[in-house]
């Protein structure tokens, strides 16, 4: 620069651009790039494919497990092998094999040493020649087709030449024959080959024939081993070990094209379908390597057809992490079900099944949904449909009536027109038209009659979860009402009635409305009965199959219906007598068309007596069907009035406070509260569970829950809890449902709302397991993306089972009976029935009822269990039982469903045609009589006869019913081995023994029998099926 002295060298300044080295930076950057490259490769091969690690772990653990398991299985196999049966089979097989060994040897040697080598050698020479000829034939054909005659001719000559050529076949030295070379002309070679092939086939067939017996015996031996060995045999175990050792690392996926399903779950869960049971403990505690815990489910739902995720949810395609595979990701809409809700998966397709053998939680959820009255407010497809059906039919009837009226007008008009018509032709035409219309009116009438019948039955079927509130006037202590409404749980813990969020004023208004809306009526007065006798009747007649008595843990009895510990505080004695005598009796009938309860005046106006029951169920005003029964499932036990009085008197003693001690609720008669109370009752949807005057036709107040599980999460109102939920990880359907069920008002927390804006759902005080069950049901209530084929909509007997079970649950048949294998009745668990004497008093198990009884008889019995029109205070079939088979007043449809259910449960063919039994011939009658009254097993000592003195000690039904009631083939099986049909029965087993092709009596038989060569069992069955009263004497 300018100020630098010229002779002074300028300081050396390095050029920053050219002198600086960037090597280090580039080296570092390159190394970083290398590292990230390695990282990327590692990420791609391992981090993104965690299943590789799982597969590696699995192989070592599984091999270890198989190694410890193999000796165990080998030991088991050894045991089977050492058993006498196996040894016998083994030696039989060996004997058969040795017997034919020389012949087999001979055949084998001819085959292997002579024929097979010859064929091989000759074939080689023959094939070459034939190949050449074949090619030439093709050329000849082509040449001929092209019209090249001379070429074709020359090829033909060439073929002839080849056919005639001599082919040498060299046979090496074998079996003593020296090596030789034979020469064959082509055609001879062909013939010789054919001969050898034929000989070979013949020898092979002979060999199979000779070995037939040995092969059969070996198969028998092997299948014996297979059948008697629990698990796999040693060879199979070793096969598994080999398989495990050579496991290819790779994705394992199920691909079902039909539903676009790709499930790669088995890439980690490798033992899911292992042929033997693998527990997590066997695999070092690794849950993911256990086999499917319920194999039987996989049999019904083949994973190749169903995959995994349709049942379990989760993201079947994801393989990069456990979280993603299980779909536990914010944006995956179908996360894996939590373990306790796993049965939600069943609900997706088994919507209509109220009972699934392997889904106890879900079954419970479905039962609770109906039983606890969820259905009163929340519609759910398939539940409580009677009301909707009823409405539909009633509307149709109205339409029909309208149509009838317009048709009648039309008839009049047409006739009028005809009278005034100008030509005969026109008049005839119009008269014919009027006649046609008249006929159509009769068709409408027929349809209406039929629909009225339907209404009748639907009225019978329609039930409410809670009692009718129209009866409060005759039923209740009015001072008790407010206390109950305020907190039902305080009065009766575990009651179905939930606790609403009401302030004092609201409780008063509601009480007043309910009290004032009740229908007025008089009850006949009854003297007090014998309470101690009433207690005994209560405990033995079967009341306790549904009702319990006692507080808290001391409660004894069924939980299906109310706990009656304090019923004496609230109820009116006269009402209880009527209720116990027949709970279906109403104070006033309800006309759904006039939408009001009828009064005696309505009947008087038409000059009719004030009588309404199932036989007098039409409205005097408009002839429509009336609701003449209370909408309760409680049946009539057909008690006498005296018995009803005794039980009612006993119930009146059940109290902790005197009814008079309740605070006087004078406001309850204040009519000013009526309208406000009505509004509140409507607002809170009380009519969902109760029959309430003026609110009979209200619709459900809650949201429909049929598809609640697939409602977008944004549509579930977590309100102010949203952020807590997100933070605490319960911002999902499960979290919402569980908290809502636990505390229904929870999402109101912190909200400022008016009194009628608050969430209406009351608190049911559900137990945790009940919440889990209901949550499972709701989670499974989804819009399933699966093809229709996957849904369980059987149309055969399995449908009858689905429908019948609904009725069984509705009326709590399981309170008294075992209906399914593994299900015990409520009664059988009560302390009373634990002693041997009382055990015999248990109502019968009706597993297999369909095989036992004639369906037509069963239908009659279900409608009238007394089997009598006059003497109703008794059991029709088992008069000796203290517990009473009640009259449920089933509708025709329900009877049909029940009968079909039992038939289907026993896989009985439909329809049932009773087989013709051969009448007893000649001396058979006297022989049968001897057998029947034999000393060894006198049938009539236990079976009822109709003689009251004898029947008091009887433990089995009368034979007089057999002919109409039983099925003969069942009767035979029953007599052979009753303990297989009903374990623990008093009926003795081993009455017959096998003698060749027939059954003969196992006891001592009179000498007459020596000459009888028929089947004794068959004889007895035929005898019983023609049994008469005269015969009994």
């Amino acid at each position, binding site marked *: 620069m300018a100020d630098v002295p010229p002779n002074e060298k300028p300081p050396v300044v390095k050029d920053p*651009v050219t002198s600086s080295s960037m090597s280090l930076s580039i080296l570092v950057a390159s190394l970083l790039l290398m590292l990230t490259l390695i990282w990327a490769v590692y990420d791609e091969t391992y981090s993104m494919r965690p299943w590789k690690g799982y597969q590696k772990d699995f192989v070592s653990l599984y091999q270890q497990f198989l190694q410890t398991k193999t000796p165990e299985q080998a030991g088991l196999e050894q045991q089977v092998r050492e058993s006498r049966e196996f040894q016998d089979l083994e030696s039989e097989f060996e004997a058969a094999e040795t017997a034919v060994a020389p012949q087999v040897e001979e055949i084998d040697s001819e085959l292997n040493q002579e024929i097979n080598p010859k064929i091989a050698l000759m074939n080689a020479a023959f094939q070459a020649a034939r190949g050449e000829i074949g090619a030439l034939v093709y050329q000849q054909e082509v040449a001929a087709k092209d019209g090249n005659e001379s070429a074709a001719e020359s090829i033909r000559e060439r073929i002839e030449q080849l056919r005639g050529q001599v082919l040498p076949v060299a046979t090496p030295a074998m079996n003593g024959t020296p090596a030789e070379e034979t020469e064959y002309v082509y055609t001879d070679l062909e013939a010789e080959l054919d001969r050898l092939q034929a000989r070979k086939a013949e020898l092979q067939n002979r060999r199979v024939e000779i070995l037939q017996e040995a092969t059969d015996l070996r198969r028998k031996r092997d299948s014996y081993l297979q059948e008697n060995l629990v698990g796999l045999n040693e060879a199979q175990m070793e096969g598994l070990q080999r398989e495990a050792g050579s496991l290819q690392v790779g994705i394992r996926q199920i691909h079902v094209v039909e539903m676009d399903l790709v499930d790669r779950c088995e890439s980690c869960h490798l033992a899911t379908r292992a042929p033997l049971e693998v527990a997590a403990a066997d695999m070092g505690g690794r849950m993911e390597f256990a086999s499917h815990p319920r194999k039987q489910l996989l049999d019904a739902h083949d994973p190749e057809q169903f995959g995994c995720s349709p049942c379990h949810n989760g993201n079947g395609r994801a393989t990069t992490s456990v979280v993603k595979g299980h779909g536990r990701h914010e*944006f995956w809409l179908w996360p894996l079900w939590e373990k306790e809700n796993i049965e939600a998966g069943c609900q997706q397709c088994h919507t209509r099944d109220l009972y699934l053998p392997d889904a106890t939680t879900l079954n419970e959820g479905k039962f609770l949904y109906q039983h606890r009255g969820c259905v009163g407010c929340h519609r759910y497809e398939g539940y409580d449909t009677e009301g909707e059906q009823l409405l539909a039919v009633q509307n149709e009837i109205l339409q029909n009536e309208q149509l009838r009226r317009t048709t009648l007008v039309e008839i009049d008009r047409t006739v009028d027109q005809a009278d005034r018509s100008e030509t005969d032709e026109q008049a005839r035409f119009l008269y014919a038209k009027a006649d046609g219309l008249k006929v159509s009116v009769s068709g409408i009438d027929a349809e209406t009659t039929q629909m009225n019948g339907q209404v009748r039955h639907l009225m019978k079927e329609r039930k409410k979860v809670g009692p009718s509130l129209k009866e409060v006037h005759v039923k209740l202590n009015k001072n008790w009402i407010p206390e109950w409404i305020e907190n039902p749980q305080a009065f009766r813990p575990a009651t179905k009635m939930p606790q609403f969020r009401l302030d004092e004023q609201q409780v008063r208004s509601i009480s007043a409305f309910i009290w004032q809306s009740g229908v007025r009526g008089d009850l006949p007065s009854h003297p007090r009965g014998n309470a101690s006798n009433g207690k005994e009747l209560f405990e033995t007649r079967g009341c306790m199959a549904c009702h319990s008595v006692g507080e808290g843990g001391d409660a004894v009895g069924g939980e299906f219906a109310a706990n009656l510990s304090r019923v004496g505080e609230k109820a009116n004695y006269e009402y209880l007598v009527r209720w116990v005598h027949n709970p279906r009796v109403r104070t006033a009938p309800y006309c759904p068309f006039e939408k009001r309860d009828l009064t005696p005046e309505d009947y008087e106006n038409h000059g009719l007596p004030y009588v309404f029951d199932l036989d007098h169920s039409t409205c005097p005003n408009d002839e429509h069907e009336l609701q003449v029964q209370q909408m309760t499932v409680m049946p009539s036990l057909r008690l006498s009035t005296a018995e009803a009085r005794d039980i009612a008197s006993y119930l009146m003693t059940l109290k902790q406070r005197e009814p008079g001690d309740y605070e006087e609720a004078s406001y309850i008669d204040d009519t000013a509260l009526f309208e406000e109370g009505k509004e509140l009752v409507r607002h809170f949807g009380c009519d969902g569970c109760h029959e309430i005057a003026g609110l009979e036709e209200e619709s459900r107040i809650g949201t429909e829950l049929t598809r609640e599980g697939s409602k977008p999460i944004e549509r579930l109102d977590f*309100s102010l809890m*949203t952020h807590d939920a997100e933070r605490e990880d319960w911002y999902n359907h499960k979290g919402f449902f569980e908290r809502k069920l636990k505390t229904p008002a929870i999402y109101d927390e912190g909200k400022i709302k008016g009194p009628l804006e608050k969430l209406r759902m009351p608190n049911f005080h559900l137990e945790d397991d009940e919440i889990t069950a209901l949550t499972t049901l709701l989670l499974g209530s989804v819009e399933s993306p699966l093809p229709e084929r996957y849904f369980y909509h059987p149309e055969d007997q399995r449908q009858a089972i689905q429908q019948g079970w609904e009725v069984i649950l509705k009326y709590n048949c399981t309170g008294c009976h075992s209906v399914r294998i593994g299900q015990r009745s409520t009664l059988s668990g009560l302390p009373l029935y634990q002693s041997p004497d009382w055990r015999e008093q248990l109502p019968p198990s009706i597993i297999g009822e369909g095989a036992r009884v004639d369906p037509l008889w069963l239908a009659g019995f279900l409608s009238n269990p007394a089997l009598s029109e006059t003497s109703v205070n008794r059991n029709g079939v088992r008069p000796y039982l203290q517990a009473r088979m009640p009259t449920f007043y089933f509708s025709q449809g329900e009877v049909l469903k029940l009968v079909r259910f039992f038939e289907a449960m026993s896989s009985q063919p439909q329809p049932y045609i009773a087989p013709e039994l051969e009448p007893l011939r000649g001396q058979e009658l006297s022989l049968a009589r001897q057998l029947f009254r034999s000393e060894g097993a006198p049938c009539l000592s236990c079976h009822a006869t109709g003689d009251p003195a004898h029947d008091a000690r009887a433990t089995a039904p009368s034979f007089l019913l057999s002919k109409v009631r039983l099925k003969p083939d069942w009767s035979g099986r029953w007599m052979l081995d009753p303990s297989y049909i009903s374990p623990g029965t008093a009926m003795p087993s081993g009455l017959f023994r096998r003698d060749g092709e027939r059954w003969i009596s196992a006891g001592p038989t009179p000498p007459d029998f020596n000459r009888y060569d028929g089947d004794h069992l068959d004889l007895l069955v035929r005898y019983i099926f023609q049994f008469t009263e005269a015969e009994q004497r």
Partner: protein
Amino acid sequence: MDWHQLWVIISKPDNVPIASLLVLVPFYFWYAFRQSFANDRLIRQLEADPEMAKTHHRKTQPYHPSWPKEVHVWPYLLRIEFLAALIVTVILFVWSITLNAPLEAPANPSLTMNPSKAPWYFLGLQEMLVYFDPWMAGVVLPTVIIVGLMAIPYIDINPLGNGYYTYRQRRFALWTFCFGFIGLWVVMVVIGTFIRGPGWVWFWPGQTWDHNLVVFDLNRDLHDFFGITSMWGKSIFGAMAVGLYAAVAGYGCHKLITLTEFSRKVYERMTLLQYLTMQMLLVLMLLLPVKIILRQLINLKYLWVTPWFNI
């Protein structure tokens, strides 16, 4: 302060580019300006010493006699570019390994997500929808933006500053760019990402995004303030208001364009068409902040309401 949620929003893979914008834009802003100022100093030095200007050759470094006059592209430029390529590749590798595609739930036609946001680079446009009607914000203004960007080379006739950073020689262009890109684009993107929550409601950073939030917003058009109701009245009044704005804004812009002697020189050389195009673009650009301010201050919805479009 809801730190948890703030972190959730910032750390969403989708929002990583915007989070990096927050750091990178200021950094490069500073870096570019530092270089510009260094160059400006050199320019001043050279202007003061014409002798030196004759020999000086490298624009960004001081003169040194032993240094070659020019350096070769290979290797001196390419090696830097290579290093940059390496570093960018490493960053992209690490990014793609650690952050997966931010997929969300399957689309549900009956349920719109809330907030429903455009891709991050379009958030500026979405933000404009708050202040203008869809016809303006969705069609007219984006078109103007694109056409305006294409027009820049024809409007910008300042010959200086090619190939080197400078502040002094391109003051007007720089500030226009900063205003347009950083102010009207980057800031809008950041607002759209971090500030706009459920219901497109304004949430300050750290304020919880509450889906149940209820806000009361009553926006009024300008004519409502004056009680004008007839259609013609509204249209004419609005046109006058917008005209007034255009006059004021145009005058302001003109003052800015002719602020320094240098820029006056540039202005002198502009044709009328160039000048008018630039004025129109500037007036339109200014409209957005003006409307934001009016919205915040007096809840103004539209200045000009016509049956066909609103401004």
